[in-house]
């Protein structure tokens, strides 16, 4: 039954590709898809004219280098405790990473709730929550701020690097040099924002937006659906992940985001400042904003010298085209975040690339 589905999807891809008679570039905007695609060897099951690009789908990878430096500066202060998801501690800034800093005031948390608890347990310190992530993660930060507000905690704040997926997709397509024909849309971000959130991308840029889950067969079927839409010249919003994705998403979660945050033109690694692509706390919650509290300016940082993560994230190059890939830069000695994060494109290429793809160097 599963093999039938695989054969059927592959056949649909071949038929569409034959009708198209041109190369097709599909970008996935989800780090978990990147890993699923490599691990399952989907790339090698595709015709050579269908190319998959790993886009800005890993929140760790798209975080501006200046943000890491600001977190490190805060971690160096004796009056602060820094609470961060584990993904962030190995990302290098200009003076090493939180891990190499080896400070006892850096705490790895599994949930924003843990950061609030930390603040309650340490009333003499200010807890700074390293608030990174897309729409899947932002509601958790909103609840943390809400909880701190209810508890009247005045020693809890967040340093927001929260980002919105749809503005990034629009920014990529607005670049006249982009090679993107369609998007494979992220499963769990879509749980929150709903599949209808991609409608502006389809209407404005006429690119198919297909939401898929993480089972390899569903990813393959997503690619088949995209190829069919391209061949028919009928771009649409389609969700194959109906087990958890609804057209309007989790409206309560989205409402919480809107209550506490507002969009602004914040910096992304490799993509610059994207119009309304980042989220910051609204002015009425500025007492929870680490930037305001510590009088910090949000200055975009420099990528590590020689690291091409920015170009990887835009789908302009594949990781092996970076001179550091696999030599200077490996998962044990990462130079850029795309090699640090297990969902980063460089890390996925390093672990699975040779086996999982025919689009090698």
């Amino acid at each position, binding site marked *: 039954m599963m093999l039938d589905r695989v054969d059927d999807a592959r056949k649909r891809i071949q038929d569409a590709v034959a009708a198209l008679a041109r190369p097709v570039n599909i970008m996935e905007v989800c780090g978990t898809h990147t890993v699923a695609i490599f691990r399952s060897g989907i790339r090698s099951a595709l015709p050579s004219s269908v190319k998959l690009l790993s886009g800005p789908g890993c*929140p760790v990878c798209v975080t501006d280098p200046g943000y890491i430096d600001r977190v490190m500066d805060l971690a160096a202060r004796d009056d602060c405790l820094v609470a961060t998801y584990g993904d962030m501690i190995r990302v290098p800034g200009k003076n090493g990473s939180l891990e190499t800093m080896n400070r006892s005031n850096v705490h790895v948390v599994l949930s*924003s709730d843990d950061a609030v608890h930390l603040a309650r347990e340490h009333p003499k310190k200010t807890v700074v929550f390293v608030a990174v992530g897309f729409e899947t993660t932002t509601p958790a930060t909103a*609840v943390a701020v809400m909880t701190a507000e209810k508890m009247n905690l005045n020693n809890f704040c967040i340093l927001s690097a929260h980002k919105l997926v749809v503005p990034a997709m629009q920014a990529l397509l607005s670049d006249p040099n982009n090679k993107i024909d369609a998007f494979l849309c992220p499963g769990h971000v879509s*749980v929150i924002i709903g599949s209808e959130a991609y409608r502006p991308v389809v209407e404005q840029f006429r690119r198919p937006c297909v939401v898929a889950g993480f089972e390899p067969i569903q990813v393959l079927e997503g690619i088949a659906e995209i190829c069919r839409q391209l061949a028919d010249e009928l771009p649409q919003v389609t969700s194959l992940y109906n087990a958890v994705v609804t057209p309007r998403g989790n409206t*309560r*979660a989205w409402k919480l985001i809107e209550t506490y945050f507002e969009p602004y033109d914040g910096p992304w690694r490799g993509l610059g400042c994207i119009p309304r692509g980042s989220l910051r706390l609204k002015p009425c919650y500025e007492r929870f904003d680490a930037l305001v509290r510590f009088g910090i300016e949000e200055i975009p940082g420099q990528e590590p010298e020689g690291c091409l993560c920015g170009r990887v994230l835009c789908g302009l190059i594949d990781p092996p085209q970076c001179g550091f890939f696999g030599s200077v830069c490996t998962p044990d000695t990462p130079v850029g975040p795309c090699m640090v994060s297990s*969902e980063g494109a460089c890390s996925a290429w390093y*672990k699975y690339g040779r086996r999982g793809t025919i689009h090698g160097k």
Partner: protein
Amino acid sequence: MCLAVPARIIELTEDRGVADAMGNRWPVRTTLLPDVRIGDIVLIHAGFAIATVDEEEARKTWDLFAEIADFQERQIPLAKEEESA
């Protein structure tokens, strides 16, 4: 990082509870899904339930995770050997 794991709610008081997936247990908050009850299966991301899922969908994901864990244990060391070779 945006990965969410399905797990069954086994304890719940207001919006705080405990969820179980394949024998692993985590604290969970259900603030984003106010109608959730004990026994429901939810997708959990960074300690928060973000959507309910049915048993069949959850089972598929649990099977996939078991496979990935197994695959990673076997494949990552292999990739490294290849690199140093």
